[in-house]
């Protein structure tokens, strides 16, 4: 079922990641939910082609962090820039910037009243005003890539969770984004469907897509990430290469977290 277009790269760390320019930059970002300080002076820079995996205990602010990057969550202070442009507060400027930032949600959020193919085509046609025939071709290619081309005329509710999430990835890719955000993309999936989604993501990483991935999938982090960012209590506690982070975590919080998840 999963895509076979890309041989799974054993060394997906792509050279561009080391030299790429900063694409997504967060500077002194703060956010509160009422009295809760969910993001505390966050500084993070993601370079073009880099795959950054954000991990941490629940409630650490990692999902919120991910959602601030396309301003689904507004921030209280600090700045966020995407390819050098500060995120506009609202309106057409923000919409345009969002169209260049792909997002994949935990709960898929496919448009329930549209077919699979329509889901993938809607953005390019309505937002980018591209020609339907061109978009259809690209959409079908993407659906083939994620392995659900044969479901193109079905509605989202008729697909399994894993299939829906792969369509959601295709929908985001159809906009030809500069960066992809993944907000716990496998957390709502049945265990047997997690790998089909991770395979698509790994192949995407191998192609040099810039990715920011919030996940609990440590295997994916080891396999595909250039950098692991560990968050706890609204702060970035530690960041390192996956190899260094998993074998030699520096902070106590990270050691504690890893001991809890890796022992079973």
């Amino acid at each position, binding site marked *: 079922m999963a895509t076979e277009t890309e041989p799974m790269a054993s060394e997906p760390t792509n050279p561009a990641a080391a030299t790429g320019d900063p694409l997504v930059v967060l500077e002194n970002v703060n956010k509160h939910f009422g009295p809760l300080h969910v993001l505390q002076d966050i500084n993070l820079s993601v370079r073009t082609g880099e795959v950054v995996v954000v991990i941490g205990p629940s409630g650490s602010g990692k999902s919120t962090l991910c959602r601030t990057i396309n301003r689904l969550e507004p921030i209280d202070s600090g700045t966020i820039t995407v390819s050098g442009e500060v995120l506009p507060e609202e309106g057409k400027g923000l*919409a345009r910037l*969002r169209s260049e*930032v792909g997002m994949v949600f935990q709960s898929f959020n496919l448009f329930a009243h549209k077919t699979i193919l329509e889901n993938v085509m*809607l*953005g390019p046609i309505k*937002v980018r005003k591209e020609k339907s025939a061109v978009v259809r071709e690209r959409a079908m290619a993407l659906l083939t890539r994620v392995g659900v081309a044969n479901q193109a005329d079905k509605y989202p509710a008729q697909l399994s969770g894993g299939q829906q999430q792969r369509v959601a990835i295709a929908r*985001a890719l159809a906009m030809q984004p500069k960066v992809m955000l993944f907000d716990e993309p496998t957390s709502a999936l049945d265990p047997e469907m997690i790998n089909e989604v991770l395979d698509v993501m790994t192949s995407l990483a191998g192609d040099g897509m810039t990715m920011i991935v919030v996940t609990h999938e440590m295997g994916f982090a080891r396999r595909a990430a250039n950098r692991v960012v560990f968050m706890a209590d609204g702060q970035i506690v530690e960041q390192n290469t996956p190899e260094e982070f998993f074998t030699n975590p520096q902070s106590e919080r990270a050691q504690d977290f890893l001991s809890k998840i890796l022992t079973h």
Partner: protein
Amino acid sequence: MALAESGNLAVGGVQYLWQEHNAFLDGLLGTVKLSLIAGILSTILGLIVAAMRVSPIPALRIAGTAWSGFFRNTPLTLVFLGTSVVLPIVGIRFAWADAIGLDTFFIFAVIALSTYTSCFVADAIRSGFNSVPVGQAEAARAVGMTFGQTLRLVVLPQALRTVLPPLASMYIAMIKNSAIAEFFNVGELTKFFDDSVRDHPEHLYAEFIAVALGYIVLTLLVSAAFNLAERKLAVTR
């Protein structure tokens, strides 16, 4: 004897109605025209107000809430007084309407009925918006849709099915509410009733039944149309 007498009266009533059927149909047509135009305008207005109330711009949200709060909490008769009496006093008389053969009182009635009904339409639509999971709108925004596109292409189509039943009740209420226009010089069904009772009180029952049937037919038509629409939407899901 009494039976024969009431029989005669019934025959007389039917004869009277037959004789006056043009006036009756004029009244019915007046109600249909008023309801149809006010229905369309209140739907457009209601959509705008509902969109304002979920808009990201605070000023629009406040304006939408104020509009709903004001007209929803004002008795319809007062709204009619406002348009038919106060508007002309402040100089809004729609003088151009006469020139194209439109009755200004009819225009005032349309304005009153549409503004009043728009609040209820807005609330029905807003509750429909709320029935659509937040993730749908978030996904739309994430692919770069503007606020308007998100509502039009993603939220509204999915809200429609939830919105239809309360909308149907509202249009039915509006048809009946249109009877108030009678007191503001608009020729419609209730005015026909009023005029004919004044002239021929002996046919009260016949007049009453005819007018009541007129309203029932209109409201049943609305119900039927909405039932059909609901079933259509259910199938395409």
